[in-house]
């Protein structure tokens, strides 16, 4: 293990000579993640700015209700007809209104479809009060080409990330070719010697995902008001994006590394 760490450090040091390309590789993967997110978040219909109405029922929960019970309740209500979604909020959270006590936020369909939900909830134990609320949301007017633009950006950035991965891994092997040859003469297997280049690819993926997550969290904390009003789907998507970013980025970077020649 110690010798592998030494070889990895030596390989990384040799690759410092292509720091500019490494940075480009990282940024291309960030672009893949960002354009992929945009593709998911942007409304499919495009068009101009629209005004929509959202309806919620805020269920103030009894303090004695356990978390398991709250989860079970949310799961059950989420399956009712007329319910669009159920989320749990702690006191102090701001969405969709400032929350003062443990609350289940039930989003119901606008119009008559959600009318029966409040009556069904009234009969459930553990709920202290039900507060209906409505709000009007301005949806950002996305030109219809925005999704196409995101798709094109995704394809181009993915191709760029894979090409850079191939190029950097191949050049890295050239920069380290004498060391590789000395170690091969010593009987070390090519598979073992490929390890350091895969570690480099893995690190690139981790750094790219870290930058993407930083951007996403920064956007969430600095621009949450704008996001709520214009791209509310992004807020719902953030936990998923945080979970998916690291594996996706690492897979892309390792794929680029694997594409390089073996010797």
């Amino acid at each position, binding site marked *: 293990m110690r010798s592998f760490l030494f070889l990895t450090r030596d390989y990384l040091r040799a690759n410092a000579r292509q720091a500019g390309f490494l940075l480009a590789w990282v940024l291309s993967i960030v672009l893949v993640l960002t354009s992929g997110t945009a593709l998911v978040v942007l409304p499919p219909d495009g068009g101009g700015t629209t005004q929509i109405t959202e309806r919620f029922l805020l269920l103030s929960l009894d303090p004695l209700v356990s978390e398991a019970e709250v989860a079970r309740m949310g799961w059950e209500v989420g399956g009712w007809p007329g319910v669009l979604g159920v989320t749990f909020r702690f006191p102090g959270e701001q969405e969709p209104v400032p929350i003062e006590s443990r609350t289940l936020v039930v989003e119901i369909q606008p119009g008559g479809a959600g009318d029966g939900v409040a009556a069904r909830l009234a009969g459930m134990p553990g709920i202290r009060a039900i507060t209906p609320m409505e709000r009007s949301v301005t949806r950002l007017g996305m030109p219809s080409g925005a999704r196409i633009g995101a798709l094109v950006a995704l394809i181009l950035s993915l191709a760029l990330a894979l090409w850079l991965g191939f190029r950097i891994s191949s050049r890295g092997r050239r920069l380290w070719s004498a060391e590789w040859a000395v170690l091969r003469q*010593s009987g070390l297997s090519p598979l073992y010697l490929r390890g350091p280049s895969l570690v480099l690819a893995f690190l690139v993926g981790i750094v790219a995902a870290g930058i993407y997550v930083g951007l996403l969290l920064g956007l969430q904390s600095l621009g949450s008001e704008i996001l709520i009003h214009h791209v509310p789907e992004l807020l719902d998507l953030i936990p998923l994006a945080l979970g998916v970013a690291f594996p996706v980025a690492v897979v892309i970077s390792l794929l680029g590394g694997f594409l390089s020649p073996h010797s």
Partner: protein
Amino acid sequence: MRIAVQVAELRFATEDGVLVFDGLSFGVPREGFVWVVGPPGSGKTLLLSIILREVPPASGQVLLLGRNLRRLSPGSFREIRRRVGFVPESPVVLEKRSVRENLEFKLRAMGLRGEQADEAKERALDLAQLRGLEEFRAEELDSLHRLRLALALALLPETGLLLCDDPLRALEPEEGKGLLATMEQINRAGVTILATASNAAMLEQAGFSRSSDPNHPRRLVFLRELVEE
């Protein structure tokens, strides 16, 4: 006498069906110094590749440091391989690093550090006659000293058997004598050497002689005659 390398009834044919070895047999005694001589294209490099288990023969047996290569697991072979140094026909050294850094790189890559690594490094520097050149970068060395550095690298970390593929090929006669002296010194320190050469003249001058005795420690064998041996 114990045998370091034993090749028995080795048979190898190329993909085109050209029979390179057919019943090749010979041995190298422990602490011996044997040269296999043959013209270019006679299979010298191939022979060393088979001994290093990089190329499988069609049939025959190879015993390396007393172990049959065919019966060795990858893990056991790795253990044996650590004790076998190899200098290829075009030896590679780390051009931008000093002699000392070259040796330290290999030692650390093989997992050796501290006192054990220092001892191995000092021994390699002495045996390869590189004293005083420790801080020279490899690219600053002449051909003879680059080969000596390749020998020093091959001696690490705990080499008991050294395989050299035509080391005299690219050297001037005087440099060749210098390298031969270095190899003699390495052999006197207890390292078995199996080397190949295209020309036997310099080796015969240095006291190597043709012998049919497989236990002869300083033997000169000719590849074309080995099949009949």
